[in-house]
């Protein structure tokens, strides 16, 4: 039952959404108007070929990620073990792991000289090369299937206990149970999830570049990168960015319009109904496989951490650490504010069309190539005569907040919508103000989600490479910037240690922030 449109909740979020749409348009227009600065490249890229290859790769990534995500969520839902909570938090953390870090991890494990092949060598065996479409899909799965599992698992974990009791008393067999109880809870989340994963894969950059094996597997994003960075053909860059935006919009808009907010919330204890023994064993095996496939590359990255001690003597390291944390922390809060405003506006919106219009700009941002955005921001700062060093922290916070927003929304919206349904009458009866409502009802009930959104915002800024590539200077260095520079100067051990540190900080944010927010909410209650 939808609430009567509440304009005080609708407008702030709608404004944020339209401001984002305006910002994207303005940034593209700025680049277009600056194309005179550049050159006209002699070779228009083969757009049809790029679109075909990109769509194939993104389609495969999406399908496989959903299947693997469902399997992983199913297995985790059916099992209880020590460390389960930590593992669930890690699932969300893998999404924000910088692509370059994942690529490093995948190679360390599956590369020609990686752990697996080192183990197989004594037996005269070896795996095939990791480069190519297979390598891209594997690295994408590592990020996206775990993200899918992180989104889907709460839906299974929060199934009403009454439903489970009923199913149990009917003696549903495992497959029937999945079809009748689990699937209806998962299905509503799938279109939105599929859209996000498709966008991520469609615009994937470092993974495709490093693991793709060459031009045969390249994406539009790479062509845009080349147009901007080498040919400096700004006209072509904007044209390609528009093609990418249009292709993605075709997918995003329908899902933003029609993907309904679902029932899942974290409120209430989770009910547990174990599977019969063979299926429990299957769940254990599947979980172990997933842990092995997804965990090993990350473990390989982390294994380089001890070398971080070698950086302690460098002032640049400490400066970059402080800067990174100083930028990531406000990002976390700005992400939360934006996500809350847009999510409540979406919840308060009366019609599906309006809901879609409010949510679409936030997702559209995912489809705009990072290199183009950074360039647009650069031109904006120039036109406003803001020195690069002043603009850098602001742009880094803003750009990464917007990148984190679609994920933050997918975390926050379902919970807000469910609260709305449950407490609509109370709120209307008490005439609660927007602020009271947030303070008294939403913040305590959604503490865990709020913690996750904070972690999301924190990590996107922490791992940023596309903004810093243009805005980084001697006076403004972040940890990823330092990592890139170390790689560029025969310091691959330093780079590996920095990659490990970045991963560790991301994981720590995801492990620490949700319980911290929950404790804060409980302490107040």
């Amino acid at each position, binding site marked *: 039952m939808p609430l009567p449109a509440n304009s005080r909740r609708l407008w702030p979020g709608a404004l944020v959404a339209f401001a984002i749409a305006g910002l994207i348009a303005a940034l593209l227009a700025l680049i277009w108007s600056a194309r005179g*600065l*550049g*050159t006209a490249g002699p*070779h228009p890229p083969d757009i049809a070929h790029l679109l075909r290859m990109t769509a194939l790769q993104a389609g495969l990534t999406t399908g496989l990620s959903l299947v693997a995500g469902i399997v992983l969520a199913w297995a985790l839902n059916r099992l209880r073990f020590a460390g389960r909570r930590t593992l669930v938090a890690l699932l969300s953390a893998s999404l924000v792991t910088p692509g370059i870090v994942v690529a490093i991890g995948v*190679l360390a494990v599956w*590369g*020609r*000289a990686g752990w697996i092949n080192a183990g197989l060598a004594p037996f005269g065996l070896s795996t095939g090369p990791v*480069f190519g479409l297979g390598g891209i899909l594997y690295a994408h799965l590592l990020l996206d299937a775990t993200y899918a599992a992180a989104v889907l698992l709460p839906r299974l974990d929060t199934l009403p206990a009454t439903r489970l009791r009923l199913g149990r008393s009917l003696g549903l067999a495992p497959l029937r149970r999945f079809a009748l109880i689990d699937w209806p809870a998962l299905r509503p989340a799938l279109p939105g999830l599929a859209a996000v994963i498709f966008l991520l894969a469609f615009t994937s950059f470092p993974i495709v*570049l*490093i*693991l*793709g*094996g*060459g*031009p*045969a597997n390249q994406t539009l994003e790479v062509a845009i*990168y*080349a147009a*901007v*960075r*080498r*040919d*400096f053909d700004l006209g072509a860059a904007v044209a390609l960015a528009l093609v990418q935006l249009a292709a993605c919009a075709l997918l995003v808009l329908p899902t933003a319009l029609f993907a309904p907010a679902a029932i899942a919330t974290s409120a209430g204890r989770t009910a547990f109904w174990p599977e019969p023994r063979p299926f429990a064993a299957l769940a254990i095996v599947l979980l172990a496989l997933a842990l092995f496939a997804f965990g090993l590359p990350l473990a390989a990255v982390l294994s380089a951490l001890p070398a971080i001690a070698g950086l302690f003597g*460098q002032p*640049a390291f400490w400066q970059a650490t*402080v*800067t990174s*944390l*100083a*930028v990531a*922390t*406000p990002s*976390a*809060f700005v992400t939360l504010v934006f996500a809350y405003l847009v999510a409540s506006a979406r919840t308060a919106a009366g019609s599906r069309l309006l809901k879609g219009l409010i949510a679409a700009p936030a997702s559209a941002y995912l489809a705009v190539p990072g290199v183009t955005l950074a360039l647009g921001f650069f*031109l904006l700062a*120039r036109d406003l*005569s803001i*020195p690069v*060093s*002043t603009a850098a*922290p602001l742009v880094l916070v803003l750009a990464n907040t917007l990148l984190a927003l679609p994920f933050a929304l997918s975390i926050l919206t379902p919970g807000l919508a469910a609260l709305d349904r449950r407490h609509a009458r109370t709120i209307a009866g008490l005439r609660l103000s927007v602020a009271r409502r947030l303070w008294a009802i939403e913040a305590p009930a959604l503490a865990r989600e709020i913690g996750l959104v904070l972690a999301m915002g924190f990590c996107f800024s922490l791992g940023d490479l596309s903004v810093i*590539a*243009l805005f*980084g200077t*001697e*006076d*403004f260095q972040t940890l990823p910037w330092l990592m*890139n*520079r170390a*790689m*560029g*100067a*025969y*310091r*691959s051990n330093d*780079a590996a240690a920095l990659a490990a540190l970045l991963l560790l900080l991301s994981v720590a944010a995801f492990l620490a922030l949700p319980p911290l927010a929950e*404790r*804060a909410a409980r302490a*107040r209650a």
Partner: protein
Amino acid sequence: MFRPLVLAALLAFAVAPVAASAADKPTLTVYTYDAFAADWGPGPGLKQGFEKTCACTLDFVAADSSIGALRRVQLEGRTTRADIVLGLDTALAGTAEATGLFAPHGIDTTALKVPNGWSSPDFVPFDYGYFAFVYDKTKLADPPHSFKDLAGADGLTIVIEDPRSATPGLGLVLWIEAAYGDKAPSVWSGLAPHVVTVTPDWSSAYDLFLKGEADMVLSYTTSPAYHLVEEQNDRYAAAAFDEGHYLQVEIAGILQSSPHKDLAGKFLAYLVSPEAQALIPHTNWMYPVADGPVPDGFAGLVAPDPVLLLPDAEVAAHSGDWIAEALDALAGK
């Protein structure tokens, strides 16, 4: 509970970089690539040396690549703080000249030791090197000695850089073009099956090679010297190719928009002086353009014969086509 966090966030934001206070001395700003300005690169030594006599502040601003530094100047237009762009190479000289952003340097470069006598009124050459495939002697006993050898070597793997984003990648395109001309596309087709991956920049390619992902990597003849001198490791060598090796000369130019052209000229003169050139070999791992000591590790390096170099104008006019040919061959089209 949230309030202290918000406060902490605001505080953290406040300590983020504060602009350095302005001094009376003029500041000379040099845009360059990251490794040049890094703590371990030539930047700090050059700064120390030049500031002793110039009564100025020398400020290196690092972009992610030399082409990134040029693009940045183009983007910033007349508002740029840069006086000098340092680190472009011969393959980009034509493109850079065509922007009209650079002013003649007025420095006599005839005495500099640059192979093939490369010179330009706008750019001062400050070091050079040759592109080469580097390999690990303990793993590859019999390296190829030509592109033909490479194409025919069963199971040999190489990793190269993308010619659209990395100067060595572009260098390979020019190398094959200079050696084979019209037959370049067929050479590329011969290479394609051996290419494990094409990376966006030199460092990821080199890193993959060091991790053992390929038998050879497109790098410089001087790369083995780094391992020899810094790591006392003599495992790495560059394969000498019968076709010769393509020359990369790194260059620096003064911007037309600079208010400190005289000072900028003095810095370029210092850059090619024996004192500054002595820093280059063991910080930038390239050959100096002035006589002077080089690390012992440079003695046994490959001496290219012949040295290949295409005219700047030809490169500027055709590199787009050549890159497209190379990419098509790599994509199997």
